[in-house]
């Protein structure tokens, strides 16, 4: 199995973006690492070269490095090549330019990542509206330093509520009825 | 003689006084108008059935007569005029000119029904037309210009068609009185008679908003001053209907004998009118369904309802004419009611854009109740006058064998439910908008007029025979076929029977049963708030549009787009463009501002004329 088309994509990127580390991950899969400020031009460049489908943005919390890695997925229907653009922003006060001018749907992914990872996307106007987490004022819950077990135990404090129920003589669940 | 002059003087004097004194005190103009209408009605009541002569033009005796039909139409006119003058008590913002023109308009309308000769008819006709235009004008018409100009142009065109028709008759018979024309109509050749009738029917058809002459009506109705619209749509259109009656039964009857002109057992005019009426009713109601503004909707509905009347006139047998005249009354009543209610809504909220209204039942319950009453009549629900007349029209259509037009009429009637529901839902039902939280109920003048209009609507619905009786008397006095099989509460046609009282009592009983069943069911819980609705568990607040009133029948519109694309409006716009093009060419050619060119023209004319003289003269 030759990797000609993948190589072509890598070459394509290398021509214009010398600082990008592009490599073929496997068949139909190309991985690119760039600096955060180069993501926008790179995506724009790829969009102009047949990568019409903006698939998603995902994020990884590299807690030891103090960085959050953003992965932008693009897909070319003609060549059938998937490009992953990886970039890293600092965990604290990290910020990326929005991709909304290029792909409208990026807005939604950015809101999602903003809510769950706390990455700021400059230029995204809807970023401050609550999206999935309603009435949430804690830390972004998908970061690795968020202790979801603790949160679950403390916030949904069942013991408290149950003791109150016992005081009120409420039997929340009456058990099986005899046949 | 004097009584007629008093009658005319009452209105014209009232108009003059309202115009002169109205600017001093708003109360005065309202009072004068109110008084003039009441006084006029009293005077008319004393006039009875009689004939009056006036010496008008070159000492010619013009005739004003009152017969049963006149009484019917005039009482209808004065009744609605009374309603309007009552409602006007709450409208000080209208200028004195409006009040003056309104009285003149009523006078013109009444005189149309009274006049028995060409001169006075045309005089009254034009008086009625231009005063209506003046009223649109007097109400500040920044946005209304195109509608008003369109109305004025069309009514002028209609009036001129009438004029041509009359003048042909005059030229052929040398008579100006209707009775003399009818007597000597035998001397008129068929060709001229057909031409004259065609012109007359077309001319009257403009006023009766007959397709394809309807394009002015929706705009003009919707842009006229709100309290006046009921009169405009309910009564002024009836002058067209009356004119068609005159043209049709005075003159066209003579054409019955010509076999060539007979289709389907009736005259070809009748056949054409049946079709025109049916298409008008059907097309206009389909358009009404897609209107976004209340007045526009009711205006198109008016066009549609007038189509019913034209349809029924076309059938021209006893059932058809009874149906036409009774629907004339029915339409006047319920359309006046609906327009008056809308005027009240506009007065309180400032808009008739249906998407901006909604939920007013909570603030204006009386208006809602009467909107339902008007709607029942409009949709032709039994127990209201609307059903009485529509039912006769349907029976007439089927009995006359006009199966396809009748089907269209039925479809139009179904479409009436569609637009009526849209009207009443968008304005009165649904969620109440934030800015209308403090809207008040309409003032007393309004709801008194609602009640006054609702009484005959129900009375003639429960006693259909009474209405048919009145109309039969009229028709018999004109030696026209009349429906005779009726009792006070029931009417029988060759096809079937309708007993309004039984339906009414039955429904009353059923309603009681329904209520009993309802109260068996026990207590209910009042909705906690306006947002207490099931919307998939979501709480929808005012920031979202919960009022389903924009593009109400979008799916229907999509399916019918091919039909709605056919537009007389576009055709007329094309004609207008053409005329403007010709006008420009003409102006650039003959008034180019070049003295030389003018001299050329002069020389050319001189040369052509002299040469042609030498050639033509032997």
């Amino acid at each position, binding site marked *: 199995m030759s990797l000609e088309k993948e190589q072509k994509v890598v070459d394509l990127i290398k021509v214009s973006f010398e600082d990008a580390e592009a490599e073929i991950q496997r068949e139909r899969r190309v991985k690119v690492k760039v600096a955060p400020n180069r993501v926008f031009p790179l995506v724009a460049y790829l969009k102009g070269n047949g990568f019409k489908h903006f698939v998603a943005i995902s994020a990884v919390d590299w807690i030891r490095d103090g960085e959050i890695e953003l992965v932008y997925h693009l897909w070319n229907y003609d060549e059938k090549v998937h490009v992953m653009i990886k970039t890293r922003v600092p965990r604290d006060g990290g910020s990326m330019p929005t991709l909304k001018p290029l792909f409208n749907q990026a807005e939604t992914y950015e809101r999602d990542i903003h809510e769950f990872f706390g990455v700021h996307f400059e230029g995204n106007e809807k970023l401050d509206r609550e999206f999935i987490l309603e009435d949430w004022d804690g830390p972004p819950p998908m970061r690795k330093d968020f202790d979801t077990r603790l949160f679950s135990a403390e916030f949904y404090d069942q013991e408290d509520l149950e003791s109150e129920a016992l005081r009120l003589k409420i039997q929340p669940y009456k058990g099986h009825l005899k046949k | 003689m004097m009584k007629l002059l008093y009658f005319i003087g009452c209105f014209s004097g009232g108009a003059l006084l309202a115009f002169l004194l109205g600017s001093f005190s708003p109360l005065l103009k309202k009072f004068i108008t109110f008084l003039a209408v009441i006084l006029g009605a009293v005077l008319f009541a004393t006039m009875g059935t009689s004939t009056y002569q006036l010496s008008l033009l070159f000492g010619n005796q013009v005739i004003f007569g009152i017969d049963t039909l006149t009484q019917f139409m005039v009482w209808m006119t004065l009744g609605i005029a009374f309603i309007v003058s009552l409602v006007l008590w709450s409208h000080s913002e209208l200028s004195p000119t409006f009040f003056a023109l309104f009285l003149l308009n009523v006078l013109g309308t009444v005189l149309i029904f009274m006049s028995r000769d060409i001169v006075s008819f045309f005089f009254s006709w034009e008086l009625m037309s231009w005063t209506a235009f003046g009223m649109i004008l007097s109400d500040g018409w920044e946005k209304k210009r195109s509608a008003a100009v369109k109305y004025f142009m069309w009514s002028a065109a209609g009036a001129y068609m009438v004029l041509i028709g009359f003048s042909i008759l005059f030229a052929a018979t040398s008579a100006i009185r209707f009775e003399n024309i009818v007597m000597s109509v035998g001397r008129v050749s068929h060709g001229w008679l057909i031409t004259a009738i065609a012109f007359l029917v077309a001319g009257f058809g403009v006023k009766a908003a007959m397709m394809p002459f309807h394009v002015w009506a929706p705009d003009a109705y919707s842009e006229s001053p709100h309290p006046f619209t009921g009169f405009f749509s309910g009564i002024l259109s009836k002058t067209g209907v009356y004119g068609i009656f005159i043209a049709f039964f005075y003159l066209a009857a003579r054409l019955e004998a010509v076999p060539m002109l007979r289709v389907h057992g009736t005259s070809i005019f009748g056949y054409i009118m049946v079709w025109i009426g049916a298409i008008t009713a059907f097309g206009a109601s389909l358009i009404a369904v897609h209107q976004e503004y209340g007045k526009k909707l009711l205006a198109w509905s008016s066009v549609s309802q007038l189509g019913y009347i034209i349809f029924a006139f076309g059938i021209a047998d006893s059932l058809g004419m009874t149906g036409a005249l009774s629907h004339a009354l029915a339409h006047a009543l319920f359309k006046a009611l609906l327009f008056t209610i809308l005027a009240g809504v506009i007065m309180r909220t400032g808009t008739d854009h249906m998407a901006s209204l909604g939920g007013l039942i909570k603030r204006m319950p009386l208006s809602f109740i009467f909107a339902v009453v008007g709607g029942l009549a409009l949709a032709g629900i039994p127990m209201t006058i609307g059903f009485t007349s529509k039912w006769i029209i349907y029976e007439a259509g089927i009995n006359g064998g006009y199966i396809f037009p009748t089907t269209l009429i039925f479809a139009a009637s179904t479409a009436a439910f569609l637009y009526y529901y849209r009207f009443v839902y968008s304005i009165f039902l649904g969620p109440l908008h934030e800015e209308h939280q403090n809207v008040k109920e309409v003032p007393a003048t309004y709801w008194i007029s609602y009640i006054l209009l609702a009484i005959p609507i129900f009375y003639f619905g429960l006693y259909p025979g009474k209405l048919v009786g009145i109309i039969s008397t009229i028709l018999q006095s004109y030696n026209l076929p009349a429906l005779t099989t009726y009792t006070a509460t029931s009417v029988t046609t060759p096809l079937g029977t309708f007993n309004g009282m039984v339906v009414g009592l039955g429904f009353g009983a059923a309603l009681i049963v329904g209520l009993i069943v309802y109260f068996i*069911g026990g207590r209910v819980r009042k909705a906690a708030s306006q947002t207490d609705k099931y919307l998939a568990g979501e709480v929808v607040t005012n920031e979202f549009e919960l009022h*389903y009133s924009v593009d109400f029948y979008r799916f229907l519109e999509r399916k019918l787009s091919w039909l709605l694309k056919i537009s007389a409006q576009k055709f007329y716009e094309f004609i207008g463009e053409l005329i403007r093009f010709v006008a420009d060419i003409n102006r650039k050619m003959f008034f180019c501002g070049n003295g030389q060119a003018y001299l050329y023209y002069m020389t050319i004319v001189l040369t052509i004329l002299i040469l042609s003289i030498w050639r033509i003269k032997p």
Partner: protein
Amino acid sequence: MNAVGLNITWIIFMPILVIIIGLFYLGAARKITARIQNRYGPPIYQNIIDVIKLFSKKNPTNHGVMFSLGPVMAFSGMLISLLFIPIGNKALLSFNGDIIVLLYLLVIAPLGMALGVGEGGNPMGTIGIARALTLMLGYEVVLVISIISVILYTGSASFMEIIKMQSGGVGHWFIWPLFLSALAMDMALQGMLGEKPFDQPVAPHEVASGPMVEFGGKYLGLLQLYHAIGIVVETGIFVNLFLGGGTLFWWFVKSFAVFFVALLINAVMPRFRIGQAFAFFWTYPAAIGLIGLILVAILK
């Protein structure tokens, strides 16, 4: 006077009978649909249980006076329509009004319901009403074409006259000479009954059961009763016009047969979009009806 007295007895008795039979129709409908779908299905009296339950429910939400009056008006409107249709040779009130009167009486009920739904203020309900009215514009034309062809054929718009003309056995039923009209009317009936493929107004998956979205408890109970009577009345029109009426038993049998046909179609059909449904009515059934009408007009 004896005849009148009898009449009044029936007038009181008939609605109760029709309500019960109509509820059984609905139960049967569920059972039959279940059997078609290879299910066991609820008992045939299930709808009676439902109505009892609905009336026994407490504190259904009320959105205003018209909201309460709407179902009442729907029920009463259907009740009065019932009296104007001869059922099993019992004329009830139908001497006082003909087919056209009935057609317009039939409108009171939906109108009342529509007004009630309107005050409920739920946009889904209004969408349902808008759909129902659009559908009505569709099938009413077909219905009217069929009815006009019957009236043309018989020269009368009175139910009793029409039934009388069909007396004398199966051969005299108008379904034979007016087959096309009957076919068209049956299609229209499908829409009138709101059975698939014409159940867009109440489509539960699209508009949360449409008009009924805000109605619960006794409101819904009234609407169930309205629906039960409605089925009998609507199929009854067909029975009287084309199947020759008949005695009380046979009348209901015929009426159920008509309903059964609608049910079978309902059980196997998916749903049209509302625009499609409307367009459907104005094409095939209308064309069939018109051909029938023209044939009647020519042959008459």
